[in-house]
């Protein structure tokens, strides 16, 4: 079964802006799905329609087979959402916020308190349960929004940039938590600006640009579509210019740094052999950019949109 089925979804705002221009999208049950796109591409509009916070203009949308037009309540019951913008009642305590959220989904109060302890503990917020939301740090507020979204144990969790502004340590612990959640059977749709995050976590991906799906594929297949990769090499002795490496394009960046572009038919061994023969020692090497970032930039550049 599909967790999410979107057919020919169109959204035109009153000011005439067409945010979605006939989107088709499938997210399979149990998937960890990345929805990427530049700012203003239509990601948040799509999520807004999924969660009934934005009215669609036309098209259809089903959540676990429940059509939003005919079975709205059943569809909503399947979804948990962590929005991009903070939307907490700043004057309520963490525990009250999550327990109330469970109540809106019809979870009895006793069970809601049990789940509050479970999810606030899992997100390292249990000791803050009596603190008002406004007293929490940015990262804690984000985690509180995740705990809140999980209180009714949704089958589909939609996370709109959940790690924005969160430090690297907390981000990594959130990744572990989301991975466990997905392994437990929860379908997850993630939008993020950290492409490393999408590449690390997600199995499938759609790139949305200017209201259209520019690419939708398995993550590994999409990454294979990258025909060339650029590597940055640090060399021990200073160089005045880029050395000649037959068959490869080598650029001189500074006396100790070179950049080399490798296609899928070429090997790094050959580059190193030629550099060694020229007496150049390479002390370290790194990818110039994240692979997904490279694809993302190319897809978005192709359609002429700013990244």
């Amino acid at each position, binding site marked *: 079964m599909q967790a999410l089925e979107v057919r020919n979804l169109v959204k035109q*705002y*009153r000011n005439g802006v067409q945010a979605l221009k006939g989107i088709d999208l499938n997210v399979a049950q149990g998937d960890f799905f990345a929805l990427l796109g530049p700012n203003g591409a239509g990601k948040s509009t799509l999520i807004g329609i999924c*969660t*009934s*916070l*934005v*009215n669609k203009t036309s098209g259809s949308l089903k959540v676990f087979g429940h059509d939003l037009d005919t079975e*709205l*309540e*059943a569809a*909503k*019951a399947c*979804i948990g*959402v962590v*929005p991009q*913008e*903070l*939307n*907490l*009642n*700043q*004057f*309520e305590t963490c525990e*009250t*916020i999550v327990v*109330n*959220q469970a*109540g*809106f*989904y*019809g*979870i*009895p*109060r006793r069970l809601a308190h049990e789940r509050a302890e479970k999810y606030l503990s899992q997100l390292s917020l249990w000791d803050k349960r009596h603190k008002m939301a406004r007293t929490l740090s940015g990262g804690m507020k984000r985690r509180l929004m995740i705990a*809140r979204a999980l209180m009714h144990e949704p089958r589909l969790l939609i996370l709109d940039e959940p790690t924005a502004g969160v430090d690297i340590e907390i981000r990594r612990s959130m990744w572990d938590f989301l991975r466990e959640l997905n392994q437990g059977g929860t379908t997850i749709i993630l939008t993020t600006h950290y492409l490393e995050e999408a590449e690390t976590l997600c199995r499938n991906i759609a790139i949305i640009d200017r209201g259209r799906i520019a690419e939708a594929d398995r993550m590994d297949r999409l990454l294979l579509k990258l025909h060339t990769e650029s590597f940055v090499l640090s060399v021990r002795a200073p160089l005045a210019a880029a050395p000649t490496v037959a068959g490869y394009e080598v650029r001189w960046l500074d006396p100790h740094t070179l950049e080399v572009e490798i296609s899928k038919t070429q090997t790094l061994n050959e580059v190193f052999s030629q550099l060694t023969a020229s007496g150049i020692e390479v002390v370290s090497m790194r990818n110039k950019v994240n692979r997904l970032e490279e694809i993302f930039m190319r897809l978005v550049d192709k359609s002429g949109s700013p990244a």
Partner: protein
Amino acid sequence: MSTSVARARWIGFQTIILREFGRILRIWGQTIVPSAVTAALYFVIFGTLIGRRIGQMDGVDYMQYIAPGLIMMAVITNAYANVSSSFFGAKFQRFLEEISVSPMPDWLVVLGYVAGGVLRGLLVGLAVTIISLVFTHLPVHHVLVILAAVLLTAVVFSLAGFINGVFAKNFDQVNWIPTFILTPLTYFGGVFYSINLLPPWAQSLSHANPVLHMVNAFRYGFLGRSDVDVLLAFAIMLGAAVILFGVALTLMRRGTGLRD
């Protein structure tokens, strides 16, 4: 509708009321105390100082005459203010989305907020009633009329507050209606005087004021006296409640002021 759906909805409804009750208690200095203080001042100034010179109004002691009106005034302003400010606040801080994304149907959300408004209206009404008993004796002519009038009035103004909250784009717009419409309607709604004191044209005009009917129906419940037909007053209250509920529900379904 299955039992589990009905139970889930009941829990959702309770949750909105509990949240509203928590809010009323959390900011009691803004929600309960001001109306009680204002009512006490009215009793001291209009009742004790000026009222002594007025003597009787419509055949009863003036203090006794204004007590039901002052209680009703507190109920009206608090029921309205609770829903308009709470709903707008939730919209403004965006935590209304907690409810919007949930499976709670629109009508239940409206009822939940209205119940919160009614709760505050009744709590403050009770506080003002207790204060009024310090200053005067309040007989009970017809307890059901008292309860029905106060409940219906609280519902009507909670619904009106809800609609205000839906349309409001800033906090100024939450205050406009109470300042420029609600307060004049209440002051000209027979709280402090019988409309029999007014010239005929002003009496006719006063009958167009729904607050006059609410205050008088409530007063009838205590004192057995009214400037208006009590049955007509109840018809107006019921009619207003039904119409305002329809408007509130339509706005929610369209997503007016909430969804683009």
